[in-house]
């Protein structure tokens, strides 16, 4: 009977024991530690904005800044709620991708495009729904959306740099 153990090298054993990419739940902390400081701060700012937005939404602080306040249409409020939900789905998917270190760049690219769609449609809606009467709330709302978009772009650039350096 052949000795199976002698056929397996230590290198092969290590390779087998090493978790495969996509199933390695490293956690957010270690995932962030492997990335640049700029990536880390952008991610934390993004999470901070998300949390603040969530609190402000439920407290009712952002109600005057929403298109529904200018148009008075229920549909604008419903549209905002749907997008609000979709944004949280994106945050969840992004966090999961980062935790597993799996296709982080691609997930952020998709999120950035979705955010761009939200920004453009929101801008058009604000402009069409009488932004002249409520200029400040419109600018405030759009700057939040644009800040999220620029943070996502920075995350993509940083992740691309990291992949190039590896």
């Amino acid at each position, binding site marked *: 009977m052949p000795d199976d153990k002698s056929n397996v090298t230590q290198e092969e054993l290590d390779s087998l024991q090493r978790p495969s990419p996509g199933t390695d739940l490293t956690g957010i902390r270690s995932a962030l530690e492997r990335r640049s400081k700029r990536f880390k701060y952008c991610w934390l700012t993004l999470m901070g904005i998300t949390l603040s937005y969530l609190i402000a939404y439920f407290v009712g602080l952002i109600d005057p800044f929403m298109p529904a306040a200018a*148009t008075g*249409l229920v*549909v604008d409020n*419903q*549209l905002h709620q*749907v*997008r609000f939900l*979709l944004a949280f789905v994106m945050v969840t998917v992004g966090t999961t991708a980062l935790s597993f270190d799996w296709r982080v760049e*691609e997930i952020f*690219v*998709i999120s950035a*495009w*979705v955010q761009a*769609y939200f920004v*453009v*449609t929101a801008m*058009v*809606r604000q402009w*069409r*729904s009488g932004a002249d009467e409520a200029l400040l709330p419109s600018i405030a709302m759009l700057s939040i959306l644009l800040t999220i978009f620029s943070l996502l772009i920075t995350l993509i650039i940083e992740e691309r740099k990291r992949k190039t350096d590896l």
Partner: protein
Amino acid sequence: MYKTCIAVCYSFAILLLALFALIVSDSGFTPASNSGAFLLQDLTAIRIWIVIAGALVFAWKVNRKEPRGLTVTVLTVLAWIMFLEDFMVLDSILFVAEHPVARAVVITRPIFLAALSYVALQQWELDIA
């Protein structure tokens, strides 16, 4: 199957362009209210460019034999988001699909979404291969 799905996607894009042209030119597409009319015009104007840009970028990448998994995935996610927005919010205020072209778009939309999702999944495998 992959090529059939791409053909389905392009056919749907042509159908959408025809519908957009009708909405812009035909006064028969009147939403329930003036605000609804604005919303319809705004969304139509934005979405038509997404459809045109998506179809052109995909065709360009096919022509240059570049990886296009990410492009198709972005388009798939946007298509599903637009569908969700329409299905959950906008259908009731925009218009009743009485025109044959509008009805064709409504009927073929789930087929298009399934086809586009299949293309997106398949494209990643093809890009790797």
